[in-house]
């Protein structure tokens, strides 16, 4: 066998060639994997946002639906109203107010939103309605934001203060409905959120979950934020009540800002999802 011939026909790669080839391969693979890694993280982030979005959407759907149906059936649907109910007994089969209030519920001396009301507030509301439309089954449906958890609970309406009834319920009557709700976050958290989401939390203030719009006696049929409503409105039964009272609420704007369970895997910044809903109460007083 001829050496020269062998080197001619079966010469291997030089070290330089191999190293160059390996280097190019490593660079291409590195770029590939870093892209893969980025998209992996992005996928993780996105799927977290999706999970939060999904939970939030379901919650918002239900709140909007409860707000839409609030006030059914109104007292004007009855020629003879059932007598007042007693504790533990079935309650009147009609609605006194689409949104129950505290203090002094049903005395028809309602509190004022943004004034004397303990509830409803921007983080706590009790809708009064018949959600199943089965005769005589009026319920109080409460949504309350405690910390970062939105709780939901429903009980049969009673002739009593709604807050007292909810407070006396066994543990478990109110259930955690949506977690990681950041509407009422601390100032430090809000500052952090605003770094990523400048348009959320206008003014750097907590964002109320519920904003109430009342019919405006000064310019009917326009509505106005309840706390800004002045004057009185007259109910169908002739009683005059302050325009800013819960019985005069027409629209409820619901804003939910939910943080994902983990920070953005890529940027380590908080991930937030904000959804808005608008509930319109159609039933008359």
């Amino acid at each position, binding site marked *: 066998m001829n050496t020269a011939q062998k080197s001619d026909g079966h010469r291997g790669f030089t070290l330089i060639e191999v190293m160059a080839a390996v280097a190019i391969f490593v660079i291409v693979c590195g770029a590939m994997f870093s892209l893969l890694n980025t998209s992996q993280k992005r996928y993780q982030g996105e799927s977290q946002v999706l999970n939060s979005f999904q939970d939030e959407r379901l919650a918002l759907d239900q709140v*909007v639906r409860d707000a839409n149906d609030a006030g059914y059936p109104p007292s004007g649907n*009855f*020629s003879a109203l059932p007598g007042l109910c007693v504790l533990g007994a079935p309650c009147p*089969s009609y609605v006194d107010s689409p949104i129950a209030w505290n203090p002094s519920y049903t005395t028809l001396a309602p509190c004022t939103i943004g004034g004397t009301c303990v509830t409803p507030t921007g983080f706590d509301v009790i809708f009064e309605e018949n959600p199943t*439309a089965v*005769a005589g089954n009026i319920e109080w449906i409460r949504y309350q934001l405690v910390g970062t958890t939105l709780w939901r609970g429903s009980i049969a309406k009673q002739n009593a203060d709604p807050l007292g009834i909810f407070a006396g319920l066994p543990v478990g009557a109110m259930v955690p409905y949506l977690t990681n709700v950041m509407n009422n976050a601390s100032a430090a958290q809000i500052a952090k959120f605003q770094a990523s989401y400048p348009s959320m939390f206008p003014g750097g203030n907590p964002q109320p979950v519920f904003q109430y719009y009342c019919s405006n006696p000064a310019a009917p049929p326009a509505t106005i934020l309840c706390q800004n409503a002045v004057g009185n409105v007259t109910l169908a*039964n*002739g009683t005059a009540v302050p325009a800013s009272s819960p019985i005069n609420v027409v629209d409820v704007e619901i804003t939910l800002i939910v943080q994902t369970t983990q920070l953005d895997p890529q940027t380590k910044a908080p991930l937030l999802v904000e959804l808005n809903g608008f509930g319109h109460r159609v039933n008359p007083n």
Partner: protein
Amino acid sequence: MNPHTHQLRKSREAGVALLIAIFMLLLVSAVAISLMMSSSTESSLASNYRSSTSAYYAALAGLEEGRGRLLSTNPNYFNNTVANFIPAAGLPIPPNPQVRYILNPLAGEVVAPTTAGNQYYDNEYANEFGVQASTLGAAAQTIASVSNTGGSQGPMYKWVRISGASEQSVNLDVDNRALPLDNTTSLFYDPAHLNLAGASDPSLIVNAAPPSTAKQAYEVAALAVLPNGTKKLLEYVVAPASFNLNLDSPLTIPGTVGSFSGGSSANYTIDGHDGGGNPPAVPGCNPNSQGGPAVAVSNQSSGNTVEGGIPSNRVTNYTGTNCSYDGSSTSGCVGSATLPNSMGSPAALQQTLQTIAANSNVCLASSQANANSAGCTNPTISAPGGTGYSFSQITGAMPGGSWPNAATNPQVVYVDGDLDISGNNPGSGILVVTGNLTYDGNSNWNGIILVIGEGTTTFNTNFNVNGGGNGQFNGAIFVATITHNGNGNILPTFGTSDFNVNGGGGSGIFYNSCWINNAQKPITYQVLSFKEISQ
């Protein structure tokens, strides 16, 4: 090995580059697809949320079409499209039901809510009325929706059902009697309903023979189905609403009566019994209410003024029921005024006047840009003696410059100033005069006349009648002072008003609940309740 073999091997190795390239392409595609997947999942979730909201608003749009087209003043009023689509007698419930559907199919789609098996079949009807919608047959009439005129696709509701309502169909114990719920009596809405304590309590009623003030309540249900299958079924209960001017006396003068002088002729009568004086009939209405006193006032002292103003030889012409302020059994019938909420105080009455003015067929007001136009905004309460109008101006302001069948074709006429309807002028409907009303004994009116004015104890609203004749008023007349003289502020309670007939005064005033109702055409179908039916 020969060079030929070497050449062969080299050419076999050349395919490796292609394999590597394909592998790389695969890798890149996988990453790209995974990125695309994640963002498309997001947009499909977002569209899910949107569709549930869209379906809700689509169904609501259907409800509003149904509610709007019930109103006779709507250009798309059902009966303008199909004669007698909504019968004057209402829509009966089973066993002999009449049901109406508005259909709104997409192009090429069949929406048949009463055909079993159709994908939009009305399952809910059986839940509410106990019979399948497929058994309705000719009792169910349909009409096309007007929501996609102009070629653009309107809201995606499929059908809107309009029917009568019963306790069972709305699933409410309306009269608080023992269960089971009534499924044979149609629900009516009575704005004049009183609660057990006698206070005004407008509400639904269950009554096989409802009072003349009550109007049938309709159930309006709408089904929306989006192309992706999202469904919503919403339901209204609606009833016609009018001005609620249901007076119970031929002549009501709240506040203080400054002076009163009744007609002197033997014919001049004020009769509080419903339907007295041979009035023209209102088709389909039988005057059968309890009626009230000939003259209704707010207190005994005003009652005494009225009693003193009735000519002593004519007291028997002043008859009625509930004559609680009568001085003696031989005096005319004067009693206490029961006012509907809408007229209970000067403030409430002013609000009512605004509504009447806004919904008027003819408005004569100097504040109007076009003085003779329908529907005034922000009318004032004029002082007597201001701008004066005549009956011919009312007629002249009607479409075509005439008032066909004036005696039986009710119109809402708002006159911001004094009005003189002297002469042989028949009229019908609601007449509001914010000033003095003057007429002579040949004038007629079937319906409601409100004379509302500005004044103080020394400056009175006057209801002047000059001369005799054969004219007759059927319905109710209301005279009140609601603002201060000069500054126009609303009084806390009704001020002083006068009622003076100088001379014979024609045939007089006869209470008539049918003409009172007939004058008050619905201005809207109010929503009594709203609910969502789970699908």
